[in-house]
């Protein structure tokens, strides 16, 4: 499988990365080089093999259903959460208008 300019433009749009025409042209052969190389995985017989889900067997834990069980990751951290926002206004994240 190989990608063309239109496909790369589509992927970039899905990934929310703006790319110029020139960048697009440069990326097509690069991505095709990588994709052609990973294609060799197709020759591996994987009949009956489950895809990996966890490299080290582990069980998923549930924490106790308690408010602020860990004060560090609990609630009441509005100012800390907003501290690095490029635009924080009135205790909220500021974004360009999304509703006309």
């Amino acid at each position, binding site marked *: 499988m190989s*990608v063309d300019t239109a496909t790369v433009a589509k992927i970039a749009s899905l*990934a929310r990365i*703006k790319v110029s025409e020139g960048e697009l042209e440069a990326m097509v052969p690069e991505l095709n080089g*990588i994709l052609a190389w990973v294609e060799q*995985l197709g020759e591996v017989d994987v009949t009956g093999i489950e*895809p990996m889900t966890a490299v080290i067997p582990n069980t998923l834990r549930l924490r106790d259903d308690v408010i602020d069980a860990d004060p560090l990751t609990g609630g009441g951290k509005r100012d800390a959460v907003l501290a690095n926002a490029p635009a924080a206004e009135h205790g909220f*994240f500021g*974004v360009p208008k*999304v509703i006309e």
Partner: protein
Amino acid sequence: MTDITELGVAAIRDGVAKGDFTAVEVAEAFNANVAAAQDALNAFIVATPEKAVEAAKAIDARRAKGEALGKMGGVPIGMKDLFATHGVQTTAASHILEGFTPEYESTVSQKLWDAGAGMLGKLNLDQFAMGSSNETSYFGNVISPWKRNDGGNAPLAPGGSSGGSSAAVSARLCPAATGTDTGGSIRQPAAFTGITGIKPTYGRCSRWGVVAFASSLDQAGPMARDTRDCAIMLEAMAGFDPKDATSLDMPVPEWEANLSADMKGKKVGIPREYRMDGMDEDVLKSWDQGIAWLKEAGAEIVDISLPHTKYALPAYYIIAPAEASSNLARYDGVRYGLRDLPDGANLQDMYAATRAAGFGAEVKRRILIGTYVLSAGFYDAYYTQAQKVRTLISHDFKNAFTECDVILAPTAPSAAFGLGENVDDPLKMYLNDVFAVPASLAGLPAMSVPAGLNREGLPLGLQVIGKAFDEQGVLNAGLAIEQRAGFAAKPDKWW
């Protein structure tokens, strides 16, 4: 008195405890080395000399009161700038996180401070840990302190992604540093700079507060001058963390106390598939030398097979970008980091412009590959297939470990290369990790130990891979190599 900056973790810890020197003297000596090398090596993104001194003062005060000083008491370290540090800029060497000042501390760095370590600064790396030469950092390349012995002056790569860590430890800017390893990012830079580094079993070190690249692979570990120092620092870094869903709920073994270079009764596997066509002669020679050393240490050498080795790298370059594309979706110009809002732009335009301006070329490349292999219609052919191959790679190791206790292989296919030599061809760069990636895909502990110098006078590393949870076996084999290699070479100070 000996130059304090020639000392490693154990010697500093013991010297401070005994009163041979104060922790403040240690911190100031390393602070001076950090400052003197910054222009030439660019190993740090931010230096924090005041933090190092502050931690050292606390240690000296504790000693004066007769209190215990901790596993890393009085040892100043470098912190890879992938670990969130409270109040100190954390960038992952990216523009998109430039100026990001965490409101919290990563679990691993907190554990190190709790163990008595102090921070010399935040170390440069490949952007979002994506790279093998530290040439993708937004804050400039790290220059290796090593030079070829050909009289030329070509600047060399310190390896990547933990290139600031490797350069800083080998140049004596810090006795040890944190690294992270997704597909070789601790081991390959350690090999390139003649230092020691271990990636523990996946889940040993908490990922909480570590900027995510590929979450099923990312694992933190120590980079230091020798095996003992790595064992000490790994004890301080490891441990169960309820804030990381994949953290191992197991006690941390006493790796330092149980170090033993006696390999009697141990079997060392030599994977025949790692002997590849056109391999560097010096790398092959050092591998053979490593085999001889382990035999001398009492080990039995066995030939083993890891049949899916050649598929590890392509599988990695599907899985890691896929996870990266998902993890890096969080950089949206809303919650933290850079925002690029062109005139009249809507929210979607803002996302796209922010991410275009904030990510470097290699990061974009990997996000696009990841987005593609996860997209509808291609998911099974690429991603599911890669995860099945990953299962097979893991099975290969399980089978091999029925016949041996540890595996010995080269760390990287070559010694350090020159800056700029591999940047035009992403695939050529990716091949650097051909021997490192299989253990990453299987979540196994693996370390790199310096084995000697090649004909150009550059360090070569040997890799020891162990069973899951058997860091001790890995460290012990590493120690056996270290004792016989007697690696004492260090870069001539030109900076």
